[in-house]
Every structure is written in structure tokens, then in C-alpha cells.
């Protein structure tokens, strides 16, 4: 039997979440009051290889506020691992003050009152919440309250190998998926060994990338809380994906970024967060473009910073102070330029350094423009249902690399998602 680390962690997280839900971890630690409000504990998975950067931000914060100390806690290698660790900590009672919460992990945390609504902290801490990019800030709203501030926010980008594109006589990235089909056929004819497009597999957020594709067909995972996997248009998108994989136009793989970076693929769907790494290490010339349309054909994503609910008000205020600092104008500029994540503050976009940088690096500008023109917020079935991303990712793996029947799998997804909704969400709304 093949047990991945992530599957294992998911199991544990599930148990932990169940324990949190019933709010009896069995062994107490229910009040995590106390703790030193001057010692801020920040748990991060260092998105986009940002550990050194985060430490720099922390050092700058402490230099400016010497009465504080900030501890950086390793939260694993991805957002899910971090969420599992946080769930265990919640059940156990020893919680960090600030956690990185991704598009799919923040909502279950908010629903279970594990993270705190920030609106009051904004007004008491004099946080200029209007300066955060509106769509990114509003992604964290539940029942009219905000549960996070954007931090390492991204959209998928269409990265393409300029040289291969030129050789095949193609002009720019495809604007629709049908156009991609034609382009891919051309690319494949010239270079039968090179996959025209590589996309991460279901364990690496294929469910996120495919979400854009399903929208362009008029389908979706869900419309608010109504599951929509079995809608005709959604099924059509699923069939298109499976067919593209069969034709060899799309290759689903665990680590596509490296394949693209070394010239083994014509194009790549990846997060904007990979731009920094690719710029540094890619052996090829590449450009970035929007995901194929028709618009909107691209979800937003990435992670924000959230504050633990269990800690007392003084600790929350300290935590808010650090969150604000980590995402202030200067730090946003540094962080987004080093990682490729989107600048999350409007004022950062006007910063002279940022303007100069974007002029020099139009590939980063793509993400910012796409955010305004080609994105919409994600479907509830993926990002609000517990385990939604994993569930859909697994289903997509089965119709692509597994070669299973699209109707059958999407029907299962429909059924499972509906069950999870009725069991975990509906009673709490």
C-alpha cells in the first residue's frame, strides 16, 4: 500500500480537526491564556523559499520594536502540513500567535473559531486595511468579518518557453483552451519528446489550476454551496482535460517546474510564487501570460496571515502589529520581488522601487494585470469544504494519469462534496 506523508498527515489532521470540533481534546489545555505578549510566535511554511526573507523581516521588526521578540516556527513544506500541525497544536493547547493560512486552509479554521476575526484589531491597531488590494483582502471574509490579511498571494500563470514558441512559429500564449489544443499539436509535431504543457498533479494543486479551465467551459466545482461537478459544462471541461492528456498535449507530473526550467516542456502552469525560483535557475528563456480564457479563466490563491483565536487580547494586539509590519509597504515590495508573489498592498505598487522593478521585469506585471482582468474568487467546493482541494485533486489524477471515466469520477466528487457539506458545514451556518 502506498502511503504518502501528506495522506498520513491528512489523517492525523482529520483526527485533530475532529477533536477540535468537539472541543474536547481529551486532555484539556482549553485556555491558552497567558503567554508573553511581547514574545510573538509566527508559524510559517516559508512559501516560495522565503525563510531567510522572513527572518529578515523579523529582525527589522525587532530592531524597530526592541521590546518584542519574534520566534519563527517551521510549519512543514506546504500549507497542508502547516494546517495539520496547527490543528494538533489547537487540540493540544500550545498555539503560535500567527499562522500562514492558505486559500483552502483558512475557512475551516475560521469556521471552527480557531483563528480570530481581525476587523476590531484593525481599528484598535490602526491598520490601514483599505490599502490592501481589495480582491485579495475580501478573499478572507466569512459572515461579514475578515479572518486574514493577504501575504504570499498568487495566481496561476502560463509560463512558456520563448525559444520553442518562436521555432514553432507561434505568436504569444493561447487565449483560449481550443487555441492551446492547436498550438500544442504544432509544438508536438516539431518536438515529439517535449511535452507542450506540464501541469502539477493532484497532490500539487492540480485542482487549483484546473479550476480556471473549468470556468472557461462555463462549468465550476460549485456555485456557492450547490455542487456543480456533474453539470454538463463541468463534465465537458473534465473530458477536455483527459483528452489533452491522452493526446500528449498536457503532461501531469509531480514536479513540473524543474522540467520546464530545464527545457523539457513547452509551457507550464504554475503559481506566480515560482517566478523567483525560475528566474534564478531556469536554463531557458521564458515569458509569462494569462491563463487561457475566455475570461475569467484563473483563480486567485496563495496564503494570508491569520491570528490565533485562543490567545488573549494583548497577545492578539502584538500579533496584529507584526502582521501589519510583515505586509507593510516596504516589506511587501521586498517579499514580492524576491519570491514572485503578488504585491498585496496598493501603496507597494506605487513605490518607486516596485515601479522600476516592474518595468524591468514585465513577467511579474503579468500577474498583477491578470488579477484585475482574468480572475475570480474560488469555488466553495474547493476552498471552503474541509479537504476539498485534496479530494478534487485526487479525482483529477484519476481521470488524467489514472485514465478513469470522467462521468463516474465527477459523480463521486459531487456525492462526496455534498456529504461533507451536509455533515461539516451546513449545521454551522
Amino acid at each position, binding site marked *: 500500500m502506498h502511503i504518502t506523508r501528506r495522506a498520513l498527515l491528512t489523517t492525523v489532521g482529520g483526527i485533530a480537526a475532529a477533536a477540535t470540533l468537539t472541543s474536547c481534546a481529551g486532555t484539556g489545555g482549553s485556555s491558552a491564556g497567558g503567554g508573553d505578549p511581547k514574545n510573538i510566535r509566527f508559524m510559517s511554511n516559508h*512559501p516560495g523559499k522565503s525563510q531567510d526573507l522572513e527572518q529578515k523581516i523579523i529582525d527589522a521588526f525587532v530592531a524597530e520594536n526592541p521590546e518584542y521578540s519574534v520566534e519563527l516556527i517551521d510549519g*512543514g*513544506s506546504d500549507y497542508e502540513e502547516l494546517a495539520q500541525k496547527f490543528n494538533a497544536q489547537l487540540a*493540544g493547547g500550545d498555539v503560535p500567535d500567527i499562522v500562514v493560512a492558505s486559500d483552502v486552509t483558512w475557512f475551516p479554521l475560521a469556521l471552527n473559531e480557531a483563528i480570530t476575526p481581525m476587523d476590531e484589531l484593525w481599528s484598535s491597531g490602526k491598520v490601514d486595511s483599505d490599502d490592501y488590494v481589495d480582491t485579495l483582502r475580501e478573499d478572507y471574509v466569512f459572515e461579514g468579518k475578515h479572518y486574514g490579511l493577504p501575504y*504570499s498571494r*498568487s495566481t496561476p500563470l502560463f509560463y512558456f518557453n520563448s525559444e520553442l514558441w518562436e521555432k514553432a512559429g507561434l505568436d504569444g500564449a493561447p487565449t483560449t483552451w481550443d487555441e492551446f489544443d492547436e498550438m500544442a499539436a504544432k509544438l508536438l509535431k516539431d518536438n515529439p519528446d517535449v511535452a507542450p504543457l506540464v501541469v502539477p498533479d493532484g497532490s500539487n494543486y492540480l485542482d487549483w489550476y484546473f479550476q480556471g479551465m473549468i470556468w472557461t467551459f462555463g462549468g465550476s466545482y460549485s456555485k456557492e454551496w450547490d455542487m456543480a461537478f456533474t453539470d454538463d459544462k463541468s463534465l465537458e471541461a473534465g473530458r477536455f482535460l483527459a483528452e489533452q492528456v491522452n493526446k500528449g498535449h498536457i503532461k501531469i507530473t509531480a514536479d513540473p517546474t*524543474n522540467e520546464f*526550467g530545464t527545457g523539457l516542456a513547452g509551457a507550464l502552469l504554475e503559481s506566480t510564487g515560482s517566478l523567483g525560483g525560475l528566474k534564478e535557475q531556469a536554463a531557458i528563456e521564458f515569458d509569462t501570460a494569462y491563463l487561457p480564457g475566455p475570461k475569467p479563466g484563473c483563480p486567485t490563491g496563495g496564503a494570508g496571515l491569520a491570528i490565533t483565536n485562543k490567545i488573549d487580547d494583548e497577545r492578539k494586539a502584538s500579533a496584529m502589529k507584526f502582521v501589519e509590519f510583515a505586509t507593510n509597504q516596504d516589506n511587501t515590495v521586498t517579499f514580492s520581488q524576491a519570491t514572485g508573489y503578488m504585491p498585496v498592498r496598493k501603496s507597494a505598487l506605487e513605490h518607486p522601487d516596485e515601479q522600476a522593478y516592474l518595468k524591468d521585469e514585465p513577467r511579474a506585471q503579468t500577474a498583477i494585470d491578470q488579477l484585475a482582468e482574468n480572475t475570480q474568487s474560488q469555488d466553495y467546493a474547493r476552498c471552503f469544504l474541509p479537504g476539498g482541494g485534496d479530494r478534487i485533486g485526487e479525482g483529477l489524477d484519476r481521470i488524467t494519469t489514472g485514465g478513469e471515466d470522467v462521468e463516474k469520477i465527477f459523480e463521486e466528487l459531487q456525492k462526496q462534496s455534498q456529504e461533507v457539506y451536509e455533515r461539516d458545514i451546513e449545521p454551522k451556518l
Partner: protein
Amino acid sequence: MNNDAGTHRHGGDRRRLRGAIAYLAMLVVVATVVIPLYFVLITSLKPRPDIYTQPVMWFPDEIIPDSYTTVFTAVPFWEYLRNSVFITAVLTVVQVVLGVLSAYALVFLRFPGRHAAFLFILASLMVPKEITVISNFALVAQLGWTNSFAGIIVPLAGVAFGAYLLRNHFMSLPGEVIEAARMDGTPPMKMLWRVVLPMSWPTVAAFTIITIVTEWNQYLWPFLIASNEKVAPLPVGLTLLQQAEGLTNWGPVMAGTVVTMLPILVAFLLLQKQMIKGLTAGAVKG
């Protein structure tokens, strides 16, 4: 003579065929085990562009140590190694000592409820570790042991497997030898040390190896407890080389894997000698 030679040849053919099949099976096993390891090793030594080529490169063009340099400089490797060695050493000693002592008590000492005690130990083997993770975490957090060696080691130290394995082995020891020692009035600890253990080294050595490998590769629990390189062992620390949204550079990941494997290999080779020595000591007939 002719007939004889005929049967001989016939038997020889069959033996040769059997030998060939055995060798073939061995080759398959070696291939499935060795080829991935070989790939790990050469990937760790290849220059980055050579890692991703089509067709796959079986022999690197050039061998460079860059990936190793990255492992040693990009993450606090030595701290992780120190933590791994410390955690594994303490856990192995504790588990082997506990296992031997409790198995000895269960088999050779007569006390009321020892069957119940054994059933209890057996039952605890049936509980998956993942189930106890949360309550263990709560306990450790209340004791203020997060991000500490105590927090990682103590909950992992009590493992019933050793008691179970060694009990079964002790049961199989020849009763005459034990009886003889008892009649001589050997005190319990002396009996363990002088009579029981000398006949049990292979099993103890095997259990030690299993423990070392298990604890060295322990991921979930140390991951939950450790916050940083102060106490995190290698498997946890090396995830820093692997990033979801960044770009994973596989050379250093493989180099890290190689360096993580080496100490286990050394431990295995050392203990294997012990196992064979124990097997050939022949303490049974006395």
C-alpha cells in the same frame, strides 16, 4: 557408468536450473533495491542541468559536489544531524533496555497478573500511533515540552514491540538451561546477564537495528513538536529543501538523502557482525 553419468547430468541440470532461477530472483531483488539507490546517489552528484534530461543519463558527464555544499550551507545541516543522532541514540538505548527487562520479567519472573500485563502490552501494539498523537501532544504541551528533546523522546520511548518480540524469543530458549541456572540459585539479574542474554544476542541485535532505523526515520511526531533546528531531526529539517510553491532543486534533496542514509548504513554493518557472531556462538548445548 553411462547410466550413472546420465542421471548425474540430469540432476546437475536440474540443480543448475534451480541455481539459475535463484540467481535471477536475487538479481531482480538487487535491481529493485539498488537501482533507486544508485539514482539517488548519481543525482546528488550531477550538475543541475543533467538531472533533467531525456533520455535519462545513467552516468553523469561530470561529478560535482555542489549539491552537498548546498545541503551543508543552505540549511543548518549539522544541527539536524546532531539532533537526529541524539534522539535516535537515546531512544534506542531506552527501548532496548526496556524491552529486554520487561520481556525478561514476563517470561521468567512469576508474579500475579503477568498474563494480563502481557495482554495489555499486546493491546497497546494494536493502537495505531496516529490515534495517540493528539492526546500525547496535549500532554507534552501542558508539560511545556514543545520544541524540546524531552517532548520528542519521552512519548516515543514506550514501545511495546520490543517486549513482545523479545518475550517470544525468551520463551523459545531451552528450559533445561534456565532450570539448571535456577537450581544453582542464580539471582535474577545475573541470570539475565549470564544465561539469557548470551543466547539472545542475534534477536537483541535485530531489534536494535529495527529500532535505530525506525527512530532515525521518525517524521510525524518530531515534526509536530519541533519548531526549528534546535531540536528538529534530519527528516524534518530536510523538508526545507523541498518547497511546494518555490522551485525544488532535487540535487540537494538527494544529497541530503544520501547523507541521512550513511549513519544508518554504518550502524547496520556494525550490528550485522554482532548478529552473525551471536548466531554462531552456539550457547544452546551446555
